[in-house]
């Protein structure tokens, strides 16, 4: 949270992110997924310059990856207490990882899972729906599936999360 704006969300997802303010110098450090994420964060910090920041120093870097986007996709399945939480969680995940979903669905109790999930994953999903819970089915590029699962597990009120095996991108 930059400049104590606790009421605003700052969906920045990265490694060892740190903000240090000393003698008028604001230093941002850590690894972010892309240069665009770095630019966005620096622009956000730049906006607070009039509030006592003399110098803005960036020690941010782009996290190394050699994986190709668009080759594989992966579907994540999460259970939530209700449809609102599931829908909100979906938006939180996409906000964090800054990508479009290949598929984003919220399934409520009473709705059929036919054609939505492979048979092997339906037992847990149907049990959750029978207990009055809702499901979030989110398909994303496999490259960002690590971050998506992490956000679902750790940053939302998901009851559980499972990952379907990766599939070719053309046949999600």
């Amino acid at each position, binding site marked *: 949270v930059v400049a104590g704006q606790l009421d605003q969300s700052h969906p920045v997802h990265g490694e060892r992110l740190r903000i240090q303010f000393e003698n008028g110098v604001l230093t941002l450090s850590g690894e972010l997924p892309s240069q665009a994420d770095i630019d966005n964060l620096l622009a956000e910090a730049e906006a607070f310059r009039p509030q006592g920041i003399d110098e803005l120093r960036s020690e941010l870097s782009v996290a190394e990856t050699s994986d190709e986007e668009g080759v594989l996709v992966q579907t994540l399945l999460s259970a939530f207490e209700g449809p609102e939480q599931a829908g909100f969680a979906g938006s939180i995940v996409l906000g964090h990882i800054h990508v*479009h979903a290949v598929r984003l669905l919220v399934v409520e109790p009473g709705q059929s899972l036919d054609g939505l999930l492979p048979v092997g994953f339906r037992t847990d999903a149907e049990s959750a729906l029978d207990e009055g819970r809702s499901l979030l089915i989110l398909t994303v590029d*496999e490259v960002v599936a*690590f971050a998506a699962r*992490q956000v679902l597990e750790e940053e939302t009120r998901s009851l559980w999360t499972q990952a379907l095996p*990766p599939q*070719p991108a053309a046949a999600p």
Partner: protein
Amino acid sequence: MHAGSEPGDRPNVDREEAADGATESLIRRRLKPRDLVRAIGPGLITGGADNDPAGIATYSVVGASAGFSQNWLLLLSTPLLVVVQQMSAKVANVTKGDLATVIRTTYGRRVAMPAVLLMVTASVVTMGADLLAMSAAVELVTHIRFIYWVVPLSALMAFVTIFTNYKRLARYLLWLMGVFAAYIVAAFLSRPNWTEVLRQTVVPTIDLRPSYLVAAVGLLGTTITPYLFFWQASAEIEERRGVQGIRRSRVDIVAGMIWSNVIAFFIIVATGAVLFSHHTPIVTAADAARALEPFAGPYASDLFAVGIVGSGLVAIPVLAASTAYGIGGVMGWRTGLGRTAVNAPQFYLVMGASFLIAMELAISSVDPIKALFYSQVLGGLSAPALIVLLLLITSSRRLMGDFVNGLPTQIIGWVAVAVMGGADVALVYTVATRGLP
């Protein structure tokens, strides 16, 4: 449906290739030299951590007590170790979850909790033994009793683990482990009977005496060790290789595990040639250091101390982190060495607690070498159950899809269970009927 389908950027792929459903074929590209260099990562750190102070002590005890007669177990354990670590990595790269989380979401907490507790118990005891070994090694150089070094070293290790970027640090610390290459030189200078060494490496020797069986379980337990399964999976998560990085992950793991077992082999040969041939048992760290005398002469103790401290610096954070990854995964907490203590407080609290317990164990232990050795026996006793879980997960087409285990992996995995389980059963039976050696 509450929300409809939202088509995003359509992936740009060869649709004809994708349509055949062979997921693995899409990621099978030839590794370039640049990929090979970049492949080196968690696997090499895992290999380094596998030769922790307890491991070095175990290999030294095995060499001093059984000579070269257990070399065949080391040769046998190499492919088993590679396959088990590769399965651990695959769980993470396919499911995007760490091992404890995947066990929990697949089999529930009732299975995940005992599995993690098995690993945590063995890991914390090993941490205590490692701290003790580092202290004993420092005593060799400073001549100040080891017991006074336990608390400062524990504090140093806790600081390194919790407050530094361990992933970066470990890449430098691995160079310290190059000290163990001295064992390769020492093994040659000690002039063992190489024909005998080779024969005992390829021809199995079966002995049902308790001392032999304890040494065998200790050797297998320090080589194929439970905390490394959890560490490997969690390290892959932090590395974020995914299934596209599975081939790089294999190269990394094979390199790390072979390096680890090559060093183990030469430790056994050097100690076997220097100590077993003179019927000298290892009772203190100074005895263990004597195996380096053919190479380092009067400086053997100093060299041994540098190696033990270096291996402890690499391995103890791995042990502490594995404990925290395991408990964090079962409880659904935020985990990761890539996070700060503020962002993942429970993860770091568990690590801190594991250091405190390990330090207490180290202080209350009276015999460092025995503590080191039996901590590895504990690892050997708990490993088979965890390998079975790994095999069940990675053999499930539901969970792994096209990345499900092939037949060779299945066979080698079950051989690992049979070998370790068999040694455990033989040990328990022999100890029950004849008592501890």
